[in-house]
């Protein structure tokens, strides 16, 4: 067996080998994007903890793993998770599988990115940034597929499930799907995303999302991350919300060995709104990082962020949240809260809220708390006959409740509730 180069060099090496076979290789604009991304990735390499944005998350386990790209994978037919909507798009190892997907009855256009590339010049790469974002550069360099969703003006498109399955293979695989979602004025859509894989699977799932919410449109985006226990997920979401539009993101980080959920949202027009909520449920040696960058770039916009992290074992959680209120963004209403509940003395949370305010008429608040289960509350429940383990579970669920209740869409909320309940029963079974 030949030595397999790891680190940034390994990915660049495989890019050189694959570039003529990657989708869009004959399209000049795609070729240019990939070349630019490769250059950005070559000059930056994998981020190290010396880079401020990656201070709390060490990517060496990812860099050292040595991956194959999914292009070499064989088709398989894995079991599919619970469906929430009538329509669903299924990806296996990052590739769109029309044979497993059901897209009839959805009032919007859904295509695979690889097939749609000829028509995406000017749309692909509009929001994503490869400079200073090495993982986005890696995605741009090596994406093979993704989902392209376009909801026409005024259409309420319903619920779309987005399923990503990693599979077990001899060598770990890396896949870098690129998803483009566009809601035209007044449109609405709910996406419930589940990312998972079988216990024994090792892979890197490195998705990038480019999301455009036009005037008065509403996108609910519930992301349930339940990757395989030894898998990595590094995701980056770019969302741009126009006047009167709403982007409602909820991310549940429950699986994976090392996970980063990075969201960049720009409130670009007056009265745009966003909710970025999430929960991280961590145990054993898991590491999960939620990093949000929110730009209030127009007046009269509102943003709400509530992130809750529950940590047991030797797990480690990170929350970094930056709110940038531009000078034009008068009457901004911003709220950010992140709270951690430590169930074990060996667990750790790093929290870094950051506010940069350049407008003078602004209401912005943020807070961070770290605590343990409240002894008074626990005693109250036990004094009513509730056994200690059950009482703890009730208090953990209550701690998470506030973040989930912020999700307006009922289907999305039910999906998240089920995922949280599932996490806790596994946690109890393991204890």
């Amino acid at each position, binding site marked *: 067996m030949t030595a397999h180069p790891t680190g940034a060099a390994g990915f660049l090496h495989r890019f050189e080998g694959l570039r003529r076979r990657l989708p869009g290789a004959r399209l000049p604009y795609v070729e240019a994007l990939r070349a630019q991304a490769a250059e950005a990735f070559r000059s930056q390499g994998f981020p190290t903890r010396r880079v401020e944005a990656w201070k709390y998350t060490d990517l060496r386990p990812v860099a050292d793993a040595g991956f194959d790209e999914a292009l070499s994978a064989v088709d398989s037919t894995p079991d599919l998770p619970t469906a929430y909507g009538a329509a669903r798009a299924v990806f296996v190892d990052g590739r769109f599988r029309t044979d497993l997907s059901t897209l009839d009855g959805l009032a919007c256009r859904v295509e695979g990115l690889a097939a749609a590339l000829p028509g995406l010049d000017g749309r692909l790469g509009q929001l994503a940034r490869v400079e200073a974002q090495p993982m986005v550069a890696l995605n741009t360099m090596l994406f093979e597929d993704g989902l392209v969703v376009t909801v026409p003006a005024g259409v309420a498109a319903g619920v779309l499930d987005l399923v990503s399955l990693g599979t077990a293979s001899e060598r770990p695989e890396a896949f870098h799907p690129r998803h483009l979602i566009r809601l035209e004025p007044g449109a609405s859509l709910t996406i419930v995303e589940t990312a998972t894989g079988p216990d024994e699977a090792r892979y890197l799932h490195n998705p990038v999302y480019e999301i455009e919410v036009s005037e008065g449109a509403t996108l609910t985006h519930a992301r349930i991350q339940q990757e395989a226990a030894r898998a990595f997920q590094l995701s980056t979401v770019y969302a741009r919300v126009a006047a009167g539009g709403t982007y409602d993101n909820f991310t549940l980080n429950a699986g994976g060995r090392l996970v980063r959920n990075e969201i960049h949202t720009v409130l670009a027009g007056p009265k745009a709104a966003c909710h970025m909520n999430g929960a991280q449920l961590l145990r054993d040696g898991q590491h999960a990082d939620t990093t949000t960058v929110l730009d209030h770039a127009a007046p009269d916009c509102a943003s709400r962020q509530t992130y809750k992290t529950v940590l047991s074992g030797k797990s480690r959680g990170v929350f970094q949240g930056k709110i940038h209120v531009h000078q034009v963004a008068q009457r901004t209403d911003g709220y950010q809260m992140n709270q951690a509940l430590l169930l074990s003395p060996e667990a750790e949370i790093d929290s870094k809220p950051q506010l940069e305010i350049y407008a003078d008429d602004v209401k912005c608040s943020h807070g961070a708390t770290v605590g343990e289960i409240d*002894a*008074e*509350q626990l*005693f*109250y*429940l*036990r*004094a*009513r*006959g*509730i*056994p*200690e383990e*059950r*009482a703890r579970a*009730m*208090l953990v*669920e*209550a*701690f*998470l*409740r*506030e973040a989930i209740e912020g999700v307006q869409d009922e289907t999305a909320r039910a999906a998240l509730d089920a995922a949280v309940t599932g996490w806790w029963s596994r946690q109890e079974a393991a204890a």
Partner: protein
Amino acid sequence: MPRRSETAAPDKGMVMLKIEGLTAEVEGKQILKGIDLEVPAGEIHAIMGPNGSGKSTLSYVLSGREGYEITGGAVTFNGVDLLAMEPEERAAAGLFLAFQYPVELPGVGNALFLRTALNAVRKARGEPELDAMQFLKVARERLKALHISEDMLKRGVNVGFSGGEKKRNEVLQMALLAPKLAILDETDSGLDIDALKIVSEGVNALRAPGFSALVITHYQRLLDYIVPDKVHVLMGGRIVQTGGPELAKQLEESGYASVQAAA
């Protein structure tokens, strides 16, 4: 018929709670300095005393709260060593503490809380658990009897409740869990007269040969509504005087200082 895991309700007159020479410390400071007390089945006893006399410490020690070190003595509940039991085991065995300051549980719905508690206690007693519908039926009956709005079931446990609502919620829990021994820790504090009546009716409704209560209070007022069989005066961590209901009235008139002088 499911077999009960414990004996049936004790006969009236048998000792339900027996405290002998109980001493306890909080953060190295001795608060209870040798309590001796017997509550027979079917009786209601009041414990009165000034602030700092050890009333709340006694209720927490009996219900098993952490942070209290028992340095001596023994407590039996229907003949079983109470101090060796976990708080949830004490509740399952039929002990109920109505909190002086009921704890708020944001994010825990009151209905879920009450059903979980009731089912935990039923399970421990070997009784079948109730599903959501069966629970609702039982809860509605109790709510009606206590003049409590059904709305209270939908809210977070004690979250945003007024002082009176919190105490009523305690009495609702007591009515549902049907304990053998209820300890009411200053349940009258912060209650207006109407709430006081409702709370008292809730306790009086449970009066039966197999039910006892320990009513801890600073004031005599509550004892107009829940008439005790005996009144004990707790001062400086000891029971210094025991008498009938008239003792409460006497204290109201002459104050605790007179007892102190006599003791």
